[in-house]
């Protein structure tokens, strides 16, 4: 039963992740008075990219460059084995939140390495910014996890989802909502792949199927972040859960995409300053958690 549920979950995320990007593109288009692409557009893009041959740049460190997108993609799929999405059954699987975060970060790092391996100056800058933001983001995330762990007395996914609502958890969750926004690289935090400035950053030299996997990995990461967020608050069992889950995802997409459409990009320094403030908030939630509220 668990394996079937797992398969359903994986298929669901594989299908939904590009669709989610399609929904967000549509939302942004509507807010700009445009008709916008059909919500299946991202799927078509990926299918097309998969059929195109990859070209590696001459100077690239081939093994790392070629492997990076696949590693990122695989790491995120593995994370989805641990994190329940549509069906909650995979919850009984072994593993804990730390592992999920590690898998997610290794995906990010894989793309960063891929960017460095491409030897393109834009990719370097993009990768570099990614690392910059990633490091500060990590600090805040660590405090969120610690807070949750203290309150729930465990780090296993089984115990964590859904979390008990306490003051500290509430603060941590609010911080987490912001972190999800930042970690999914949306404007104004899409600095690592700012199109008008450094042309998709680390992904600049990728083409064809490798680009498809890299992009897919990014969409999966966004979905993973949303799933984590929803898991913290949605009920764990029952028929309502898949239903609520399916309804909540597009709603989150709409909210996040609307914010994205009406923001200007930050400079890296500004983004980092903001992240530091969030870290302080999460630290406070940790202190409150220790105090037992």
């Amino acid at each position, binding site marked *: 039963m668990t394996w079937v549920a797992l398969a359903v979950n994986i298929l669901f995320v594989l299908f939904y992740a590009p669709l989610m990007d399609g929904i967000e593109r549509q939302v942004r288009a509507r807010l700009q008075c445009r008709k916008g692409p059909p919500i299946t557009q991202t799927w078509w893009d990926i299918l097309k990219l998969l059929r195109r041959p990859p070209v590696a740049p001459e100077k690239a460190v081939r093994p790392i460059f070629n492997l990076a997108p696949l590693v990122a993609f695989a790491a995120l799929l593995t994370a989805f084995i641990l994190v329940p999405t549509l069906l909650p059954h995979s919850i009984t699987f072994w593993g804990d939140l730390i592992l999920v975060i590690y898998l997610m970060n290794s995906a990010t790092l894989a793309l960063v390495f891929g960017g460095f391996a491409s030897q393109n100056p834009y990719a370097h800058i993009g990768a570099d910014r990614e690392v910059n933001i990633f490091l500060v983001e990590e600090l805040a995330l660590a405090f969120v996890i610690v807070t949750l762990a203290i309150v729930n007395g465990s780090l296993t996914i089984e115990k964590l989802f859904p979390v008990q609502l306490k003051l500290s958890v509430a603060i941590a969750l609010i911080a987490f909502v912001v972190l999800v926004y930042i970690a999914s690289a949306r404007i104004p935090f899409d600095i690592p792949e700012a199109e008008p400035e450094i042309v998709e950053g680390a992904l600049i030299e990728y083409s064809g199927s490798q680009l498809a996997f890299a992009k897919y990995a990014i969409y999966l990461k966004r979905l993973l972040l949303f799933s984590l967020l929803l898991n913290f608050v949605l009920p764990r069992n029952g028929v309502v859960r898949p239903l609520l889950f399916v309804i909540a995802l597009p709603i989150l997409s709409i909210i996040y995409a609307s914010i994205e459409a009406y923001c200007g*990009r930050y400079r*890296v320094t500004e983004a980092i300053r903001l992240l530091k403030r969030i870290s302080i908030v999460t630290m406070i939630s940790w202190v409150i958690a220790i105090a037992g509220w």
Partner: protein
Amino acid sequence: MVDKILAEYGAVVLDRNAKRLVVQVDDKQLRPLAEKLFESGFYYANGVGVDERGLGHDFAMYHVFASEKDKLYLVVKVSTSNLKLPSITPVIPGSNWAEREAMDMLGLEFEGHPEPERLILPDDWPKGVYPLRKEFDYNERPEFVERKPESTPQRTDVVQLPLGPYHPALHEPEYFEIHVDGEVITDAKYRGFHIHRGMEKLAEGRLTLNQVPFLAERICGICGFTHSIAYCQAVADAAGLDWPERAKYIGVILLEIERLHSHLLWVGVVFHLLGFDSGFMHMWRIREKVMDIAEALTGNRKTYGLVLIGGMRRDIDESRKNWVLKTLTELREETERVSKDIFGMKELINRIKGIGVLPKEDARALGVLGPVARASGIDTDVRRDHPYLAYDKLDFKVPVYPEGDVLARLLVRYDEIIESFRLLEQALSEMPQGDVMIEDYTIPSGRVGLGATEAPRGEDVHFVITGVESKVYRWHPRAPTYNNLPSVPIMLRGNNIADAPIIIASIDPCFSCTDHVAIVRKGKVIWKGPLGEGVKQVGR
């Protein structure tokens, strides 16, 4: 006052009318005269080297100075028989490019020029071939010579990245080299002129007087119409023609429509560069209506192609006029509404406040023009200072902001959008009846003409010497970006690299306008956007 100065340096008046004065001076008197003129409020407007052997003279350099105070363009001619002339760049920095251009295109030498390097032609252009000399055919294509490797040695104290020339932010090929100390820009150099298309030679070679307006319009696809007007004004000035009144009003209407579309486009691009794509979409949505108006009035969305030396090729009929007036009223409301909301986005506005400051003195020395000058507190506008077409009969304000930062440039342009709406309404409703074209005219040969218009980016100055058989002997357009670009390094200095792209974009650079003549050959070049911060890390 001008006459007194000119007399002091022994200048001989060759030709004069109410708007411009042509004089000739001895080459020894040139530099002191230029210095004196600069002190008394003139700025450097244009510099043209001419191969006058076809007119029975030697080579000559025409320096054009302009003054808002005297409402005058002053053309100073110096002749040379041995290709050597004194450089006036040490006293007026604004003439730097003009002199280098003449070096490149004609082989003139300027003694005392601070950086006598090739500016115009491509890297693979052979030495000693000067396209603007009369013996060179316009369609000659010299062999490609080996490209020299970049001469500047790799510096260790600055980070250099070969970014560009195809940078997605600007959709035009160009290069900037930005020298960084930590996160702060210490210096910047421009290299571009990728779009040198040999236009001046083409005008002398293949085209006739009445074909050049179409060429002039293609100097720039955004602000081309104002170039074709400036050219026709220059020829009209040389021949002493006067357009019919109605043609003048139609000219004003189309120029203002062009300004509207150009400014809306720029505001949109700025929002795009700030990552605020919705702002871009809203501005361009409004602009689309302006394009519709242009299409209805001229038959094309851009490159209106409506002007000939004798006037306008199309009239505006009554029903269309009313439709345009109605559409403009709606557009004005829409623009005001959307802009009010966007200006209400505080963090967006704060992002561009206080960056890229250009002080007034530097702006004057470089001869900076248009909205960039007006944002630095220089009260200049060709439409008011040297009125052309029907501008002297219309009422408009010239917005001036003293801050000199990017925000000021945005505000100047926004105010100009609103003024353009007002001008359009006036011009459309006050347009007199009558002809729009004079057909019966003769153009004398060997006459000097000067035409100046206020393009969306600043003052366009076109210099014309008429030739025989309805040809131009020499035509030299000067686009505003040509004067504005050298100010970018000053704006960049001391700023965070993150702001570099928005600062560069703030002059509304129009590289194709400038590239009709030149090519900078300097150092390793960089255009680095806000990637700048990243640059710092990479270099560490």
